[in-house]
């Protein structure tokens, strides 16, 4: 009922003169989103914004034309809305009666302005854009914009008469380059932006003729001719958008896109002249959630030198292809000429627009985040890295326990990056958590954060691998945990679960120092000692007065001369605590004076040195007590470990026999 009356209204109820009809139908096709007759609200919103009316007026327009009621813009609503926009722009009240007035065509600020407006606001996020002018009812995400832009461009492919419209309304198409073309050719000489805002009847014709010439620059003539034919009859304002109207449109990288790609490249590889390795690029592009075969194809297209790595231009090419693909373009079979690296070099000569790069693509889990997350993540990462190095002790004990339990991905990231092994948590928990953290990291469909993490991790000595005791012992505690080896009791779980968490951990460490259980469990003990050492380090850092006992431990830990362990612990800790740890483990044993390392986290060596005697006595006694307790604990652990050892030996034997069996089969 409504549509019919609306249609009637479009034709007769609202008197549209010939110009208006053409114009409106042009705009209508511009906003045409789907065949059901509903217009894309995003595009309509864009158009409304281009009218440069205040938001209240736009709201009113939406209301009056009936779109608000309907929830969408149908053709009649759209036409009414356009009329109302014209009315509003002429100063008439936004009311249905105004529709009947004989109004000039609604003016839409050159959509070329829009990208600048948009892009300047977008870095602040969509909210900024919304807060700016968009009607609240129309969410305006980058997805919409890019979708709009590309749908326009794709629409141009399908409908020969739309090319003049769609490219012009696809704003981010290197407006500056286009401007340079047209300005040089403008016959009327006026500034195109202001000019066509004022006069629409004659200008579009002129402009379209102008467009025909830039269009001749490497664009497809088949598209031009219908475009020109249409141009002569239609009046379009938003001409200044694009420089090329051809099907190459989606394959041309605009300035904004180039900037964005550059920033992305920098996040992966700071040096613009260097290569991005294949694995890094793979992880990065996998985040776009494109299917792997397509990504593979994109890679093939973009890696022109076939070296398994991407140069900057190759990266931009690949990125652009992904962007295009995400916006619905089919992948080309061969690299479009505009995407060839040589071409890209030319484009870079064009002066960059002042707009900041904005997320043009819709990485689903990082839509806005590329713009925001880059900085946010990086900032968070770096301070977290720095923080972990200094604030480790304080934070570790308190925050990490809680934080680890209730981890968001971001916390994970923060924690992952530095604070791993200092947890007082049982190493088993650490293992599982680390494993869970590593699992999302392992392959595709993760967020940008992982790319950041990857970039960040190489600089910092990744604490995680230490847990695998890569150099430590033949028996890998982690593997034992994973395999759930029979005989692994919960008590095995790391020394700590058997013990009441923290205080005993230090006891364990104390105990270890005087332990005589080196023979069989020496191999395993370092593992204990690692964890307990961590804890002990934390403890000691938290209680700086423990210099004395620790130094004693240093002396008595001669048996734990495992250099790898030393490194393990050293690396796994942040920078500061490394020194004390290493010193303790020096086989020569430390005397009291040498032991207390004069590093930052241990500010009290001076104090302890002064009050050495009195404190020492007390602490010696405490230590002895604790040692005895840990002694008992360790004996128990020892027996458990021995059991484990037997089990593992058996497993090893069976595995070896299997290998023997399979060897002839595998020998090819």
């Amino acid at each position, binding site marked *: 009922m409504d549509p019919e009356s609306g249609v009637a209204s479009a034709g007769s109820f609202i008197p549209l003169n010939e110009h208006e009809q053409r114009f409106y139908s042009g705009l209508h096709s511009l906003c045409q989103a789907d065949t059901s007759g509903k217009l894309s609200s995003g595009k309509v919103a864009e158009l409304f914004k281009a009218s440069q009316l205040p938001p209240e007026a736009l709201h009113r327009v939406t209301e009056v034309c009936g779109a608000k009621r309907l929830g969408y813009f149908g053709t009649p609503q759209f036409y009414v809305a356009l009329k109302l926009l014209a009315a509003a722009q002429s100063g008439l009240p936004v009311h249905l009666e105004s529709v009947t007035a004989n109004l000039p065509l609604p003016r839409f600020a050159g959509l070329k302005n829009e990208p600048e407006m948009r892009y300047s606001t977008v870095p602040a996020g969509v909210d900024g854009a919304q807060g700016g002018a968009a009607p609240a009812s129309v969410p305006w995400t980058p997805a919409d914009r890019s979708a709009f832009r590309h749908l326009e461009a794709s629409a141009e492919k399908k409908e020969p008469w739309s090319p003049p419209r769609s490219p012009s309304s696809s704003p981010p198409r290197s407006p500056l380059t286009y401007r340079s073309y047209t300005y040089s050719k403008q016959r009327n000489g006026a500034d195109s932006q202001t000019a066509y805002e004022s006069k629409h009847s004659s200008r579009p014709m002129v402009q379209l003729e102008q467009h025909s010439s830039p269009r001749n620059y490497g664009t497809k003539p088949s598209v031009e001719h219908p475009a020109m034919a249409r141009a002569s009859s239609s009046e379009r304002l938003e001409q200044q958008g694009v420089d090329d109207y051809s099907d190459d449109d989606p394959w041309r990288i605009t300035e904004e896109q180039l900037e964005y790609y550059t920033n992305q490249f920098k996040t992966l590889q700071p040096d613009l002249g260097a290569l991005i390795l*294949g694995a890094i690029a793979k992880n990065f592009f996998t985040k776009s959630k494109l299917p792997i075969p397509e990504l593979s194809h994109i*890679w*093939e297209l973009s890696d022109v030198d076939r070296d398994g790595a991407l140069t900057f231009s190759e990266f931009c090419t690949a990125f652009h292809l992904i962007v295009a693909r995400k916006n619905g373009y089919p992948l080309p079979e061969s690299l479009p000429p505009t995407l060839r690296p040589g071409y890209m070099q030319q484009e870079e000569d064009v002066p960059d627009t002042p707009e900041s790069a904005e997320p043009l693509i819709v990485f689903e889990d990082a839509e806005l985040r590329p713009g925001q997350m880059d900085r946010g993540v990086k900032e968070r990462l770096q301070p977290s890295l720095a923080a972990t190095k200094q604030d480790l002790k304080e934070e570790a004990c308190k925050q990490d326990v809680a934080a680890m339990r209730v981890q968001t991905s971001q916390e994970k990231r923060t924690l992952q990056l530095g604070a791993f092994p200092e947890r007082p948590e049982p190493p088993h928990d650490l293992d599982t958590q680390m494993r869970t953290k590593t699992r999302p990291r392992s392959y595709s469909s993760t967020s940008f954060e992982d790319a950041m993490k990857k970039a960040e991790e190489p600089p910092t000595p990744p604490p995680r691998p230490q847990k695998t005791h890569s150099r430590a012992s033949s028996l890998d505690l982690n593997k034992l945990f994973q395999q759930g080896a029979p005989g692994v009791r919960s008590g095995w779980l790391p020394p700590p679960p058997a013990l009441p968490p923290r205080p005993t951990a230090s006891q364990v460490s104390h105990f270890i120092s005087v332990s005589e259980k080196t023979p069989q469990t020496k191999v395993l003990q370092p593992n204990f000692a690692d964890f307990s050492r961590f804890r002990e380090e934390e403890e000691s850092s938290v209680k700086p007065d423990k210099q004395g006992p620790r130094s004693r431990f240093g002396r008595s830990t001669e048996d734990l001369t495992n250099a790898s362990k030393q490194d393990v612990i050293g690396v796994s800790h942040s920078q500061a605590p490394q020194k004390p740890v290493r010193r303790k483990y020096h086989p020569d044993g430390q005397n009291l004076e040498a032991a207390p390392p004069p590093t930052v986290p241990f500010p009290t060596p001076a104090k302890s040195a002064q009050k050495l005697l009195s404190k020492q006595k007390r602490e010696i006694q405490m230590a002895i007590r604790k040692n005895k307790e840990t002694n008992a604990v360790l004996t128990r652990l020892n027996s458990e470990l021995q059991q484990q050892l037997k089990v593992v030996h058996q497993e090893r034997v069976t595995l070896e026999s299997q290998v023997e069996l399979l060897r002839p089969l595998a020998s*090819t």
Partner: protein
Amino acid sequence: MNYTSRANNYPLYIRSVPTQNELKFHYTVHTSLDVVEEKISAVGKSLGDQRELYLGLLYPTEDYKVYGYVTNSKVKFVIVVDSSNTSLRDNEIRSMFRKLHNSFTDVMCNPFHNPGDQIQSKAFDGIVSGMMVQTG
């Protein structure tokens, strides 16, 4: 004419041009694997050379020739050519294998390609088709 590459004895890629009786080619290639492996283990020292497996007539009835080639990573390329077309010269076959090897390494360079997956590279397909068309 048929081309296959196999890694660990399962086909990564198989393509045949004139007739589409791929199954027969599958079978042929598989049986020829035995011969290839025999040759590999026999030679021993210079693995990965552009060795050639020239069988001549496998079956007197269906005269076709099977050529083999092994890469350093034990990926085997097998080309089956009908003897009906004017027999290709040895060096032609060698150059074909070289091209195949090059495009294969290109495929492998693609980080999105996991070794052991079926090869789904269009460029690779293109090269193979080109070769097959050219040789009939």
